[in-house]
């Protein structure tokens, strides 16, 4: 139980950030970093723990964000209604992608997920009546959340809940079944695990968390445009997980923090950030495939 305590402690320290960082700009960076922590941790449920590769995480991120924008346009709802709805919508699409993917392994799963990502992007960008096309849709934030510090605390709370959830999920019996599927799916099925149901549930959970992150993002940047949810965004999330370390609780968290904060600190390099992500992915895979956290904690797992 040490990890949840460290997590709570870290969150408590993070609560002091708005007081320390006077500029709203850095609070904005911190909010983005937290959103990516949720994204990377939830992708790791699939990539690290279940060993199923996905390049579609930004699609679920986008589905959550667009659910928020479209609900607000039609019903005038606020963040608290959007969060469960966005998560449910993303989970639903996760199951939709998961069902035809059940029979697929490795290569084919990666292709299927990237095809799904592309379809979602094309729909967001081209179904103008529904999604606003390339211009996207605006999102208004209710007045009590309008202050950037308040929104930071909301995001921090959501991130804490998401991380704790991922921790308890991966440490639970369900988490053990995920690891069993990762290590040997045939064996897992042989000893009586219903691997299809487990994989679908894991997919739904991972997608739902990404959808929740999307709702937060839509409110944070006060709108949605399809270009925020492209395959490049998926690549960024994959890069975070790989950099931090697959299948380690702290891996994706560290990866997400490094990759969102580093380009801001070295702001001259911000325009080169995608080049950096690309080079970093190749470099990490060749030199340190277990990730930063994996290398630091020794080679216990895998």
């Amino acid at each position, binding site marked *: 139980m040490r990890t949840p305590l460290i997590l709570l402690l870290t969150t408590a320290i993070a609560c002091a950030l708005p007081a320390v960082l006077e500029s709203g700009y850095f609070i904005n960076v911190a909010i983005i970093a937290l959103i990516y922590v949720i994204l990377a941790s939830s992708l790791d449920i699939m990539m690290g723990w279940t060993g199923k590769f996905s390049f579609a995480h930004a699609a679920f991120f986008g589905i959550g964000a667009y659910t928020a924008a479209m609900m607000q346009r039609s019903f005038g709802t606020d963040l608290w209604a959007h969060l469960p709805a966005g998560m449910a919508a993303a989970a639903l699409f996760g199951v939709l992608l998961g069902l035809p993917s059940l029979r697929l392994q*490795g290569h084919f799963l990666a292709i299927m997920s990237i095809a799904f990502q592309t379809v979602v992007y094309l729909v967001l960008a081209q179904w103008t009546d529904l999604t606003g096309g390339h211009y996207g849709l605006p999102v208004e934030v209710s007045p009590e959340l309008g202050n950037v510090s308040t929104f930071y605390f909301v995001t921090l709370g959501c991130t804490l809940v998401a991380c704790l959830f991922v921790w308890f999920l991966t440490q639970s019996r369900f988490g053990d079944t995920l690891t069993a599927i990762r290590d040997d799916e045939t064996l897992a099925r042989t000893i009586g695990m219903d691997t299809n149901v487990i994989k679908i549930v894991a997919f739904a959970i991972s997608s739902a968390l990404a959808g929740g992150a999307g709702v937060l993002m839509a409110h944070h940047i006060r709108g949605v445009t399809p270009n925020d949810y492209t395959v490049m965004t998926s690549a960024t999330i994959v890069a975070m997980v790989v950099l931090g370390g697959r299948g380690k609780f702290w891996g994706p968290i560290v990866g997400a923090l490094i990759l969102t904060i580093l380009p801001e600190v070295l702001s001259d390099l911000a325009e080169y950030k995608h080049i950096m992500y690309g*080079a970093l992915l190749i470099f990490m895979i060749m030199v340190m495939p277990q990730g930063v956290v994996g290398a630091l904690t020794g080679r216990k797992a895998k």
Partner: protein
Amino acid sequence: MVSDLVLLPQFLTNGLVIGSGYVLVAVGLTLIFGILHIVNFAHGEFYMLGGFAAVLGSQLLGLPALPTLLVVAVVMAAFGLVVERVVFRPLGGKDPTNAIIASFGLSVLLQNLMLKTVGAEPMAVKSGFAPGAIQIGNVFITAERIAIVAAMAVIVAALLLVLRYTWTGRALRSLSENPTVALISGVNVRRVSLITFVIGSVLAGLSGALMSTVFMVQPNSGALIVMKAFIIVVVAGMGSIEGAIIVGLALGLIESLVAGYMGNELRDIVGFLIVILVLAVRPQGLFGLKTERS
């Protein structure tokens, strides 16, 4: 409805041109993905680089069409050689997801490197052919488009001959059937793998060069093409070159008809729906024999 049918020959012709471009990219990917089992998400960037190599040859060096294609082939062969040696060979044999991630990183890297060096503006490749469309019946077609179909036919025919009658071609086919037995029978698997990868990247580059005479080239040109190439390889069945030719042409025709009769915005989605359907129903692909899924 009658007026719609008048346009049918034109749609079919357009589909044939686009399909020819797909065939070249997809046959290259069949070699790399279907036979070497390397999931190269950067294959679309090879296509894009081929387009820019053609811009280099035709615009900057002012070369005519055929020497430009030669420049493209040489540049892409060298590039493919380096990528195989530096990225994919060291990763071979280990966890296959590592190569997937690395190729994805390569794709992101190449796209954004080109974005920084040449900018996002689309560039055209000058073919040097006479401008203006030729009318055949009620079909209008430009010389560049005819050249794409002709070049595809020549290149694919040459490839099939090489595969059928040369030592390397035989070695390659044996490799696609069973790498272990090929190795035992004295095939230099490393050398043949390298050659296969190089041929695949040259084919992608040539396709990019040819298609850029009609559709222009920009740093993200390859992003959608690579997905369609994967669709074609998967639908055709891993490693089936003839299948990739048929499915590549068919996808071009289907897309053109869908765009013509059902709306242009559906053009790019139809292929993805087909692949999801095929993978769910017949995972080995239409022309694949073995049930290979991983």
